[in-house]
């Protein structure tokens, strides 16, 4: 995949780079423990199955069913979608387990749920609920401003957000099996997701051209483990699956992120804050499956009702991705 990916430029042929065991092999760069790396292979495996798919935020079982019928490859169960969390400006926490369980009962596709950054007990509760993926998410109020969860300890895989390559590799080192851009969730404005995707791609392009002797200093600058920096250079892409997230509101937004080289898309407020959620959800799924086909994209973009109302970044009171508290992370 990603023959078009700017991040793949200069690296080995994309198909060759992405051997079946490529992502599982990331585990060996993350940990020398056999037990950890075997567990990790199964975790990244699920992320590999999600590629080319759309993961949708849902707040009720009814919405989850709409998402599944539209072709979502997973749903993110949460109490309030980011647009409403923004409107309230309160502390945002893990959702009520009963609400997550009701969504698990309603669909057969994977169900994900969010824990606060650094809140390892919320993660333990989500694991006890048997969710399929935990999103350690900046959309919720951080519980720890310095440390993330040690994600190797869990059987459930984690997805984490990133704004740049260093942040992505630090999360992978902590055990994240799946990375997404941070974007600016709940705004319907894709500009931050594009910024973060381009930032990761640009840094990888730079890394690919580097001499091996330069990697030590680059790893120090990134604040990322040398082994993972080396692995990223070999592959010419992030060593795990990477999705876009934050502000995707239209089929065109989704295809834009795919053409920027991402493996799939999260859509949060964009669907259920729009005029015709079922139509828009199906259109975004089709746009991601045929993201390079202008004709399909034209059809997908036609007659799907009004999108959610977007927010311009300068008008934002609360910036999650740009929150200074995340800079240390």
């Amino acid at each position: 995949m990603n023959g078009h990916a700017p991040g793949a430029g200069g690296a080995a042929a994309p198909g060759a780079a992405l051997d079946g065991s490529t992502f599982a092999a990331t585990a060996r760069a993350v940990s020398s423990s056999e037990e950890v790396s075997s567990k990790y292979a199964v975790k990244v495996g699920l992320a590999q199955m999600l590629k080319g798919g759309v993961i949708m935020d849902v707040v009720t079982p009814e919405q989850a069913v709409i998402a599944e019928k539209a072709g979502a490859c997973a749903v993110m169960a949460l109490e309030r979608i980011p647009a409403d969390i923004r409107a309230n400006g309160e502390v945002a926490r893990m959702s009520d387990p009963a609400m997550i369980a009701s969504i698990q009962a309603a669909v057969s596709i994977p169900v994900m749920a969010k824990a606060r950054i650094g809140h390892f007990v919320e993660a333990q509760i989500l694991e006890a609920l048997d969710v399929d993926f935990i999103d350690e998410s900046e959309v919720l109020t951080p519980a720890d401003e310095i440390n993330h969860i040690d994600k190797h300890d869990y059987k459930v895989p984690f997805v984490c957000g990133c704004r740049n390559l260093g942040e992505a590799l630090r999360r992978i080192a902590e055990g994240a099996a799946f990375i997404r851009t941070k974007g600016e969730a709940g705004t319907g404005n894709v500009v931050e997701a594009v910024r973060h995707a381009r930032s990761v791609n640009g840094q990888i392009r730079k890394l690919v051209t580097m001499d091996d002797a330069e990697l030590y200093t680059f790893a120090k600058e990134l604040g990322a483990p040398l082994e993972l920096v080396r692995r990223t250079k070999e592959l010419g892409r992030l060593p795990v699956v990477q999705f876009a997230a934050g502000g995707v509101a239209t089929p065109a937004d989704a295809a834009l992120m795919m053409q920027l080289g991402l493996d799939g898309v999260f859509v949060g407020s964009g669907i259920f804050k729009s005029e015709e959620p079922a139509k828009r959800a199906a259109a975004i799924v089709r746009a991601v499956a045929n993201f390079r086909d202008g004709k399909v994209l034209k059809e997908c973009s036609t007659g799907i009702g009004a999108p959610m109302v977007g927010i311009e970044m300068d008008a934002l009171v609360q910036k999650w991705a740009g929150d200074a508290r995340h800079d240390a992370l």
Partner: protein
Amino acid sequence: MASPTCPLLPPPRIGVLELHGDFAEHTAMLRARGAETVPLRCAADLSPTPPLDGLVLPGGESSTMAILLDALSMADPLRGLIAGGLPVFGTCAGAILLSDEVVGKGGEAASVALGGLDVATRRNGYGTQVHSFEAETAWLPADVAADADATTTAPTAATDDAGAVAPLPTGPLRVVLIRAPIFERLGPGVEELVSHEGRAVMVRGGSQRQVLAATFHPELTGDGRVHALFLGMVDERRRRLAADGGGGKKAAA
């Protein structure tokens, strides 16, 4: 490069369904074994020139793929290709798409996407992601696989006119099962090739023994024997068609 199993044939052309899931991993495994791959993203992709020699349906979410197959009008032509004898290999979600009967979450019947393989398959048979696992198992000896096939009238259909049937691999096999389905019932004539803890995890069947389906992911573990077995099935059919004078008489049977 020539065909991996027959130096006289050109490389086989394998169509890989690229709507969603781990198709890039399948493509890499097939190319590493000398096959040409053709991405399948719309109905027109299903009838390229020269034609396809085989099909691969990747892992992912079967509901997502089934919905897209329908929306893109690809389901009917795919059913036609499979019924015509084109070898097809599905893993996980791909195996669900090929099942003649699909059992859903609460035991209710879920819709059949393509069919072609006489099995009843339960989606998420093992449960959620925390029940996903990697395990060591082994290829079943060929005589066991043949025993399972004893009820059919033509147990060696693939050997009848042109050339010997490719031998099944032997020895240990590492399998990774991710929110995997379970084959709950195998119809008559469906051979069990690999099992784990008493459950079939890879089977072969179909009207012309052209359908290979696994609930695990050989495309993720880097062990090429399963893809090599499938390419062997593809070449057997190509040799048979060549022996028939290049016609599709056999396929129409």
